[in-house]
């Protein structure tokens, strides 16, 4: 069975190269049969890679420990969901999984475009197949997933216990879907550059792909944060680790692209910039994949070092070189007659939004690679840790939050004094008032005050937009508010879906601000029956109970939570001891409320004295971060579902001093 997997990868390698070359030849000599043959070969690559993936999955599920990968990343006692997750838990398996997603998306793209974009498609196929060819080369020659051992071990070494968590079963797939999804707009962009079809056809074709990739990048980052929050037990969710940064950077540039592309759709401007953003986003996804696998920068998330680094660097360099060369070649055609009716306009705001997003991406990139630069220049190893990233990114993040409020409601083309007054007077006043009220309430963390005030400002701008739309529908059609709201959203999904996404982003800012500025923590060692107070709650330690399964042994601390003398719950943080490999981990216990999470970790337990050390944290507003993610999902769903109305030309409502109602 395993031999089938190896064989499938070997044939797929040949076919991927064949598909790329035939597609290129077909496009160059205008041979339809060449192009058709290449497309069939691409579909065959997808089938073969799927077979290889299924083979590895079968080997994992059937515990074929003769296979090195299976012996290294699973065991017979590993629960089934984690056995499946082991497919992306190791180096070669994760590359295979990456490739499965890429070829599947490639197949969907081919099938979607059988009747359209026919001039672009051969080049799109070339790009996707060359990326697949690179990954297949790694899987066939550098880190093969189907290597046999000289003997069959009785038991596997098991999956890293830190990865044995629900969020780890969905975090990597989400992130990979995001990473790979960025390859589709990149392939179309390259196709557009090669063919000279530089209008917005390729942008319209890839709009949903880009949004989908952005959505999965968002989810991948959030799932990773949730995993860190629940598994690592340090009370936080983001540590600016190089691998976290690697996932964050393409999200930033992809967000910038989603905004700037609107200007191209509306005004046929920024074609060069949009190309740069697409190329940069894809390059950053490859850079992220390189970072996790090269060992160049130390990270707790890295895979074992494997010699893949130089190959990824060459691939990244070649990708950038070809892309930039094509971009320079097409510069004359890409140059558009850029015009802005006014400095004060939504176009200008979007340009500033792009500047800040790319600026944050650069700051994160710079901080991530600076230790390597420092070592190369000075020969001294330094650390660039969370304090650096927080100091640099906080002002930039707050600027972005401000622009989130301004962008959607300032007029397209030209914002008149009336437009500004009409759209911003109330939100600015509410933001200021909110900040002052919070200051009066005793908050003296000035970044937090600014952040909360800006959150109120942004929410007020969005609320006003919804309010006006609903009132207009009520006045004209006589609908009740709920119906008016639903119809308002359903008739312009892109615009109102975008607003909902912004609400999610504001909620995330609230969560990040709360945990960054007002976190409390305490470490205390207690005897059974002893109590301590935390964030207004009284916590009584009632002892530890021991449990054991064939996979893990664990201690559970029983901690009763009292509010005003009344027991409101019991929290049970655990200390786990995995048997293979022998490694202790923490399983935190959380009492989550909208205002704050009470977060408990069982640090240690002494069986003789029955004393336990508890680490307790109060994480204010952290649940807003996760609920913001849910709102973001809803907003993306609203945006991505097509309007039921027939396809329309891109809108650009003429400004009459009321651009706030102009369509997106």
């Amino acid at each position, binding site marked *: 069975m395993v031999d089938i997997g190896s064989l499938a990868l070997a044939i797929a390698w040949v076919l991927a190269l064949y598909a790329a070359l035939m597609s290129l030849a077909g496009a160059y000599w205008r041979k339809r049969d060449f192009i058709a043959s290449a497309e069939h070969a691409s579909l065959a690559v997808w089938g073969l890679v799927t077979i290889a993936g299924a083979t590895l999955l079968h080997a994992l599920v059937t515990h074929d420990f003769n296979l090195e990968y299976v012996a290294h990343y699973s065991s017979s006692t590993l629960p089934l969901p984690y056995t499946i997750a082991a497919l992306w838990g190791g180096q070669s398996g994760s590359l295979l999984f990456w490739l499965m997603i890429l070829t599947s998306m490639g197949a969907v793209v081919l099938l979607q475009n059988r009747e359209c974009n026919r001039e672009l498609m051969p080049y799109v196929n070339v790009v996707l197949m060359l990326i697949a060819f690179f990954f297949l080369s790694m899987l066939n020659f550098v880190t093969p997933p189907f290597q046999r051992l000289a003997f069959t071990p009785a038991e596997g070494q098991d999956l890293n216990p830190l990865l044995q968590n629900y969020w780890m079963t969905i975090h990597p797939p989400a992130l990979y879907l995001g990473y790979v999804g960025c390859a589709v707009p990149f392939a179309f962009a390259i196709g557009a550059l090669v063919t000279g079809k530089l209008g917005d056809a390729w942008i319209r074709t890839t709009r949903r792909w880009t949004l989908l990739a952005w959505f999965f990048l968002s989810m991948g980052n959030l799932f990773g944060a949730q995993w860190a929050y629940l598994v690592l037990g340090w009370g*936080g969710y983001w540590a600016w680790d190089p691998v976290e940064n690697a996932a964050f950077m393409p999200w930033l540039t992809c967000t910038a692209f989603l905004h700037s592309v609107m200007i191209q759709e509306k005004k046929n401007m920024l074609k060069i910039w949009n190309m740069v953003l697409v190329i940069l986003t894809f390059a950053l996804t490859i850079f992220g994949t390189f970072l996790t696998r090269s060992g160049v920068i130390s990270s707790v998330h890295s895979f074992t070092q494997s010699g893949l680094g130089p190959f990824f660097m060459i691939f990244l360099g070649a990708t950038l070189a070809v892309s930039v060369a094509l971009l320079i070649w097409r510069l004359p055609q890409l140059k558009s007659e850029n015009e802005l009716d006014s400095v004060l306009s939504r176009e200008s705001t979007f340009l500033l939004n792009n500047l800040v997003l790319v600026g944050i991406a650069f700051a994160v990139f710079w901080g991530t690679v600076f230790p390597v630069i420092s070592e190369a*220049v000075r020969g001294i*190893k*330094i650390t660039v840790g969370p*304090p650096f990233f927080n100091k640099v990114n906080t002002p930039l993040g707050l600027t972005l939050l401000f622009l989130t409020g301004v962008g959607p409601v300032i007029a397209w083309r030209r914002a008149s004094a009336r437009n500004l007054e009409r759209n911003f007077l*109330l939100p600015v006043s509410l933001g200021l008032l909110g900040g002052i009220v919070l200051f009066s309430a005793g908050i003296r963390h000035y970044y937090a005050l600014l952040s909360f005030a800006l959150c109120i400002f942004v929410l007020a701008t969005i609320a006003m937009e919804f309010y006006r739309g609903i009132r207009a529908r009520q006045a004209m059609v006589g609908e009740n508010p709920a119906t008016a709201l639903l119809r308002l959203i359903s008739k*312009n999904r892109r615009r109102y879906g975008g607003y909902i996404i912004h609400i999610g982003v504001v909620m995330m800012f609230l969560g990040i601000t709360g945990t960054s500025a007002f976190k409390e923590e305490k470490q205390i060692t207690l005897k059974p029956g002893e109590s301590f107070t935390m964030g207004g709650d009284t916590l009584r330690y009632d002892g530890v109970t021991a449990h054991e399964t064939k996979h893990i042994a664990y201690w559970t601390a029983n901690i009763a939570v009292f509010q005003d003398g009344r027991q409101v719950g019991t929290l049970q943080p655990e200390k786990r001891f995995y048997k293979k490999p022998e490694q202790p981990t923490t399983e935190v216990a959380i009492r989550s409320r909208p205002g704050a999470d009470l977060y408990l970790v069982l*640090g*240690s337990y002494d069986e003789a004295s029955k004393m336990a050390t508890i680490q307790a944290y109060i994480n204010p507003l952290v649940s807003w971060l996760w609920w913001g993610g849910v709102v973001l999902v809803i907003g993306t769903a609203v945006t991505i579902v097509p309007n039921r109305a027939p396809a329309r030309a891109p809108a650009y*409502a003429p400004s009459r001093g009321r651009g706030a109602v102009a369509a997106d």
Partner: protein
Amino acid sequence: MNSVSLKQTGLGLLCCAAALVGFLLPRVPTVLGAAVVSFEDLEESLTCQCGCGLTVHACNHLHCPSAEPLREEIRAQMALGKSKAEILAYFRSKYGEKILSSPTTTGFNLVAWVMPFALMILGGLIVGVAIMRWSGRAQQKSPAEQQPARPASPYDKILEKELKDFEA
């Protein structure tokens, strides 16, 4: 609530906000000058060397072979009455620069801090110049020459009309 009442509400709130700012501003403590050395601040300024990748403050490994001794050393240094800069200099000379959780602000390390903001300023200048040039270009043209706006969708037209009628 029509646009007039919205405006009145906004102006009222703005006046309230201005009055509150006037009242509270003299009472704002001057925090920037306060250079009190806090234990937590020092913990945050040092990186745990156990491989967790976190600061000494964030490392939650119980009995961590790196974080625990470092915390003891911080307490000992604070007990000597040293300033934050002196304490960090002590750790730097003892363990090397990698112990610091962020680059120093001297020599080559200054590049780490300056570069993101320098590029932002440069980018801001480029964007600013571009916006000015592009808006100037449009203003130089006669109305007939100006880039025609793409047609609004039927829905946008309806919404525009509804809003106009509603606010009339």
